């Protein structure tokens, strides 16, 4: 027998894995994230699990004590499944918090497409209904030739092709349908490829998926390509996090063929699950979905497409591909119509990927008359400055704090996340959660509000340290330092107090500092000041809300007229959606990615100085935040 059932407790989850699978991978398949900051190398000792029944082949590790070994404790990454197993996972081995699940969750589409697309509606995979003339002795062109001709007339191009499989029974299909057929036509590298031919008019049944693939979160949409409507939206944590939460660990892990295989499998399983979930919710037959379009950072795209990422991490940090070729879905491994096509938005450079190019597209930055800025706050703060004449982009390694990752009660902007906070003079806290549910945690916009409110009420000093002297039951000492209670146990949905710790604040302070200093460095590079900006687009997974006043007051964003700011939600996903709906938009992304100059902040001598100066609330140089009173 070469397959075994592994049961995970206390989750009561079962997975079937082949012999030789390591337990870390098995956990991941079960949708359980273990801590593995070393990326499954057996070095960090954080992925301890207890084998209660069954046999594993396990390397002896000095990170497991003799006493632990006797109790069945092993490192998951170093243990190979040899039989059916029952495995207990201690709380402390779990990467994220129990109130976060690995499953995808529904979230509100944050920016529905406008009734009138800014681009011509002509999807990447289009369904064309053809009413062909029946052949006669005079008009004796072949069946396929007849279809080609009709499509060539339609697309005004000679570049139409198809596969052998599509034409084997074409003669019957045409005659049985009275020469009335629908051709599914994909756009690939400037040419058109017939993906399928079916009888009758099925143009109404044309669907596609748009994805934003981030280091921490993955967001997807099911789009009706015919009506231009978004039918469903889902968000999930990137399952690769189980192999290391940061991008570098993952690159290292993906530098071996086996590692790359596992990382790719992890993200593909994410996508599969979201696809299935959305299709089921909308009662759509997956066989009718012929297009997937992804906007993602360059590393994520390497890992998804199984392109060796080794060189990204090595001087001079050049990616193998930034503009990924269009490929059949079957080659990517996603479980969809295998004949369908997989598209991706091209990136600018290693750390300014297709997600930001998609953002430039959807925000319209590339056609601005005046100086504008796009800030995409994800795992990296990616920033593009410019207008219709020129653009310059940079990435600030902000970390995933504003995505809710790595914080005691951080979570994505989904139901139950605290997104608005106010604190009164007596230090009473009023929260507003997404969906008005009982709070489960705090999302990025909630943290931004919280920091501002805490600073305003002097709960934290300007360096972010909690004032130990304040008399309030919300301020208390924990194992590592001080914390502030945002919602008490009885108000929360997780059965315990929801807190923000000094470590969280430190994390958020670094994240906001990295983003602000990147903005300033970029402006400085082109001889501009924050005051010169006429428009600022804020993008990111903040759900439906970010308080610009709070963001400025904590020093995340420059202190300029608040009216110049516009929150545009997940601009990467919006750009992916536009590209999927319009070839014109997709082609525009290929112009945009070539038009952005990349600035490597790590080689900017002033950046580090700027960064240290910004590790303060709002900033060391108060003169830059004249309107902020803390």
């Amino acid at each position, binding site marked *: 027998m070469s397959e075994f059932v592994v049961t995970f407790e206390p989750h009561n989850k079962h997975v079937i894995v082949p012999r030789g699978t390591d337990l870390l991978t098995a956990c991941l398949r079960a949708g359980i994230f273990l801590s593995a900051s070393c990326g499954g190398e057996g070095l960090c000792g954080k992925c301890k699990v207890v084998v209660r029944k069954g046999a594993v082949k396990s390397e002896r590790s000095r990170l497991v004590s003799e006493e632990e070994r006797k109790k069945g404790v092993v490192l998951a990454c170093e243990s190979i499944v040899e039989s059916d197993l029952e495995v207990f996972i201690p709380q402390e081995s779990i990467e994220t918090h129990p109130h976060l699940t690995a499953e995808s969750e529904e979230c509100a589409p944050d920016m529905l497409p406008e009734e009138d697309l800014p681009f011509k509606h002509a999807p990447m995979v289009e369904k064309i209904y053809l009413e062909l003339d029946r052949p006669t002795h005079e008009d004796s062109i072949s069946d396929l030739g007849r279809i080609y001709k009709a499509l060539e007339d339609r697309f005004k191009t000679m570049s139409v092709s198809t596969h052998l499989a599509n034409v084997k029974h074409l003669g019957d299909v045409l005659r049985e349908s009275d020469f009335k057929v629908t051709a599914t036509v994909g756009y690939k590298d400037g040419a058109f490829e017939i993906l399928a031919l079916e009888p009758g008019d099925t143009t109404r049944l044309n669907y596609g998926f748009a994805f934003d693939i981030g280091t921490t979160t993955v967001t997807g949409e099911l789009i009706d390509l015919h009506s231009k409507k978004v039918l469903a939206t889902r968000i999930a944590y990137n399952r690769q996090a189980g192999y290391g939460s940061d991008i570098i660990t993952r690159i290292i892990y993906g530098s071996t063929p086996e590692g790359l295989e596992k990382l790719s499998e992890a993200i593909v399983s994410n996508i599969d699950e979201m696809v299935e979930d959305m299709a089921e919710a909308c009662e759509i037959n997956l066989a009718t979905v012929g297009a997937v379009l992804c906007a993602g950072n360059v590393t994520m795209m390497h890992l998804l497409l199984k392109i060796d990422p080794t060189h990204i991490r090595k001087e001079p940090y050049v990616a193998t591909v930034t503009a990924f070729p269009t490929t059949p879905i079957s080659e990517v491994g996603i479980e969809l119509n295998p004949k369908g096509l997989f598209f991706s938005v091209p990136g600018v450079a290693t750390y300014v990927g297709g997600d930001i190019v998609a953002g430039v597209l959807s925000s319209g930055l590339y056609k601005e008359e005046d100086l504008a800025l796009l800030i995409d706050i994800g795992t990296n703060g990616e920033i593009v400055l410019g207008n219709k004449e020129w653009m310059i982009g940079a990435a600030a390694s902000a970390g995933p704090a504003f995505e809710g990752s790595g914080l005691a009660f951080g979570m994505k902007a989904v139901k139950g996340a605290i997104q608005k906070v106010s604190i009164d003079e007596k230090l009473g806290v009023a929260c507003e959660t997404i969906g008005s549910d009982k709070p489960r945690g705090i999302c990025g916009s909630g943290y931004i509000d919280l920091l501002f409110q805490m600073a305003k009420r002097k709960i934290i*000093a300007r*360096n972010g340290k909690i004032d130990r002297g304040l008399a309030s039951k919300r301020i208390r000492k924990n194992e590592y330092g001080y914390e502030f209670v945002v919602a008490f146990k009885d108000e929360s949905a997780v059965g315990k107090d929801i807190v923000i710790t000094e470590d969280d604040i430190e994390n958020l302070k670094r994240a906001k500092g990295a983003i602000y200093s990147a903005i300033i460095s970029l402006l400085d590079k082109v001889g501009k000041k924050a005051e010169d900006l006429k428009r600022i687009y804020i993008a990111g997974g903040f759900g439906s809300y970010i308080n610009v006043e709070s963001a400025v007051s904590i020093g995340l964003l420059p202190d300029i007229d608040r009216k110049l700011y516009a929150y545009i939600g997940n601009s990467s996903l919006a750009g992916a959606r536009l590209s999927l709906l319009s070839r014109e938009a997709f082609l525009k992304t290929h112009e945009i990615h070539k038009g952005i100059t990349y600035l490597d902040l790590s080689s900017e001598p002033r950046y580090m100085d700027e960064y*240290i100066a910004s*590790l*303060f609330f709002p900033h*060391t140089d*108060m003169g830059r935040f004249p309107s902020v009173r803390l």
Partner: protein
Amino acid sequence: MGIELVKEKYSGGINTVEIGKAGRGPVKIGGETTLPFLFEEGQMPHPPIAGLEVFDCEPVDWPEPLKKAWGDSLKDPVKWAQRCVSEFGAKILCVRMQSIHPDWGGRPSDEAVATLKAMAQAVKVPLVVLGCGDDDKDNEALPKASQALKGENCLFGIATQDNYKTLTATCLADGHSIIADSPIDINIAKQLNILISDMGFDPKRIAMHPTTASLGYGMEYVYSIMERARLAAFIGDKMLSMPLALFVGQEAWKVKEAKELGEKQGVNWETATSVAMLQAGADLLVVRHPETARLVTKYIDMIMRKR
């Protein structure tokens, strides 16, 4: 035709911090409106000053050439302090409460404060009082020391970005000034000054320690940070307008060139470092060898004569 010198004019200036009181000094440091010794461009109303450093216990880790200069008086902190003033003419004394450090025997803070008080009574010069560098012990002992010297207007140290609140609160209550320490980083220096001021402490009672590094061991990094802080102050940055205090003795006598090549070499090392720091803008130098104090004071007198 004569050459006219280009002269910089600045809008800002350095705060003046007074240490001591009538009958104990006082001395004033700071007040500059120019980079060091450019008398054509601005004022240096108060000459920089070199003070001697004494411990409240025998400094067992000091190198031999340095110990030799002081002899047996190292065993008696009060006598040692008196010699600094009466024999070597120190105008300011820096007392380090090293005896409370856990690695130095961890003397109870009350005993250490008693020694400090005895030392303070034995001399009539202004005092700089430093803790031992262990946060927990300092937070216990420095408030007591501050209280014991209430009204003496001492300069207390060292406040760091992670441990400034206790010292700030106690100096505020007892009327002392404070030294704010930063790790060769102009931003952190400024942040700490803001944090201390945010507690209601008068920024004009803060001196900055930008980190001291010895000749050959990173001194030029400190030099450039001091220069940057000064230039920022002169263009009006109030949160960097504090006088600069440097602990040259502690660094110079750590390096092997000073420790192992004889007393004269050690003194030269300490002196050279001091002079470089004066040229970078130091207002208060704390040195360990009496001969260094004499040479540096002589240098200051000489260069200030051009005023």
